[in-house]
């Protein structure tokens, strides 16, 4: 406990922690706090419906346009990428289009000639769009999805033809009145307002917790070497496991303080904005603990372990890549976005209780999984630390003897 207190004190006094708190608070205020400043009882936007005819019509016309222009828009890494297919793959798409439309070679050429020409920006390249090309009578949706999956695969993934996204790309309709009413009821009666807001809170705070802790963890782990105190610490009569876990616990505790403060601010804001409504006063403290602590544990463990192994900010680079994969490369929609191994779960709305509950098993699994992974990483970090103390290991050098990656700071 004494060691834990000393480590906490050390972290509190560090510039890395102060900057961590400032950035965390800034993120919270500019995202969650400003988004939830007004009363809202329903998302009221559009909703994706599984209307197979609508999906097939939309996707077929879009694919016709892309095929004619030989330009397919994809977002494989969350950013715009236009893909041009080579002859062989283009022919394959043509065959698929013929199969879906039920046209022969001549018929297909006829359909192709119906495209409307348009130009993008100052480009002189012709682009084509199609609107009323019908799908062959009785064409099976399962086969259609198989074709779309293959097209998406040929494009390198991340296209609007990914079967998982088809519904959101081509079958969005305004939310019906009864759905709006049901959503309002779920938000007020079942979520008791704060339950829904807590999910949105976790979504926003999870984004910065997925990356911020790694900086403080990397700093604390490297601090002994920077101050040339490591040899002094190595000779102390304390087990490596105890020392590493005490530091880990101190990092988790201190870095959760701004999150706890944000929970409190969010609750006060909810009480003010939705005054007079019946609310679950503990919702802001229950869900965020389960949702956010594994994220905090993992990004901290990455910082500690990799800094211990490489004695450098390699951890920052690795966590940036992990964060980019979990946050930027997420497919839409950003609600109920939980897989078994999702680190940063997304649910960018205070509503959609049903969608969130539908993925609850995976959500719970992912939280347990990342908690175990984090603890295993910390055990490994303790073993590395122990090996360093014993002199049998001195970190891995990435770029030769005097490399910057071997910098002991």
């Amino acid at each position, binding site marked *: 406990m004494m060691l834990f207190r000393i480590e906490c004190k050390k972290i509190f006094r560090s510039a890395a922690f102060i900057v961590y708190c400032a950035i965390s608070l800034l993120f919270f205020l500019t995202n969650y706090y400003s988004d939830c400043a007004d009363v809202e009882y329903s998302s009221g936007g559009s909703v994706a419906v599984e209307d197979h005819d609508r999906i097939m019509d939309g996707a077929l016309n879009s694919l016709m346009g892309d095929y004619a222009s030989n330009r397919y828009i994809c977002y494989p890494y969350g950013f715009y990428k236009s893909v041009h297919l080579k002859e062989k793959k283009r022919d394959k798409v043509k065959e698929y289009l013929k199969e879906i439309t039920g046209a022969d070679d001549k018929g297909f050429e006829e359909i192709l000639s119906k495209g409307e020409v348009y130009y993008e920006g100052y480009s002189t390249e012709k682009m084509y769009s199609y609107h009323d090309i019908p799908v062959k009578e009785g064409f099976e949706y399962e086969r259609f999805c198989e074709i779309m999956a293959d097209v998406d695969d040929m494009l390198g993934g991340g296209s609007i033809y990914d079967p998982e996204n088809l519904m959101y790309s081509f079958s969005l309709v305004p939310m019906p009145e009864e759905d709006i009413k049901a959503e309002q009821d779920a938000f007020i009666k079942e979520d008791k307002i704060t339950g829904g807001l807590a999910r949105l809170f976790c979504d926003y705070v999870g984004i910065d917790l997925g990356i911020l802790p790694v900086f403080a963890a990397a700093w604390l782990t490297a601090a002994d070497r920077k101050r040339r105190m490591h040899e002094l610490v190595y000779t102390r009569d304390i087990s490596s496991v105890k020392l590493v876990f005490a530091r880990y616990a101190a990092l988790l505790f201190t870095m959760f303080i701004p999150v706890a403060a944000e929970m409190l601010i969010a609750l006060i804001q909810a009480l003010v904005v939705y005054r007079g409504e019946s609310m679950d006063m503990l919702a802001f403290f229950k869900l965020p603990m389960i949702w956010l602590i594994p994220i905090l544990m993992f990004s901290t463990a990455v910082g500690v372990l990799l800094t211990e192994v490489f004695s450098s900010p390699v951890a*920052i680079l690795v966590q940036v890549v992990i964060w980019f994969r979990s946050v930027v490369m997420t497919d839409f929609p950003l609600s109920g976005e939980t897989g078994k191994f999702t680190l940063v779960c997304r649910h960018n709305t205070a509503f959609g209780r049903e969608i969130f509950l539908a993925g609850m098993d995976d959500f719970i699994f992912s939280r347990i999984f990342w908690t175990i992974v984090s603890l295993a990483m910390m055990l490994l970090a303790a073993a590395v630390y122990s090996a360093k103390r014993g002199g049998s290991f001195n970190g891995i050098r990435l770029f030769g003897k005097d490399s910057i990656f071997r910098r002991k700071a």
Partner: protein
Amino acid sequence: MVSGCLARIAYSDVRHNFLPHYLAAVGVLLITPVIFGLSELTAQMAAQPLEIMPLLMGIILLTPILAPEQNECILETVRSKKMSRHIVNAMRIACALVLLSVLIFALGWYMRCNDSEVTVKMCLGALAGAFAIGSLGFFCAAVTDNIIVGYMVSLMYLIMNFFLRRELGKFFLMSMTYGIKGCKPVLAVSGAVLIAAAMIYRRAVKNER
């Protein structure tokens, strides 16, 4: 003779301290075509890769300018030298800026060769953004004497740009992508001010020669 000495320092510095950073910046350039489509883009679409990737290069190249002296042993050796550390730092910044410019113009040239609408002005705009965010990292690292804080602030500022377009006003880094005018000169000046402020701080408060 002085210039020869400076050239030797620059060579030694690059070889022993900054080569991995330079390679990492080149790596960012090389992965750009994997992440983004770079061919046949309109000016506004071309601005996206041209603005985002140089920001990473700016962080990688400018934030760790003071990294070698984070090691106490190196710091003690450097303190004993006659050569002013400000001159060495200025030389490191100059090297980083030259490489940054080369990489950005190489990216712009590659895009232009692939029929994207890229102009020299757009490349200069990208350079201004990269310079500003790199200078922010350098400034924070100089003030806190902690490179990790420099990385933290500059990376988080980059992430903020994805969420806070309006709130950042003239300090928004991706203005060309959204067709907002007047941001780049402000960023270029801010970058210069941050570098000057960091140097003055190190001299006045930290008594650095």
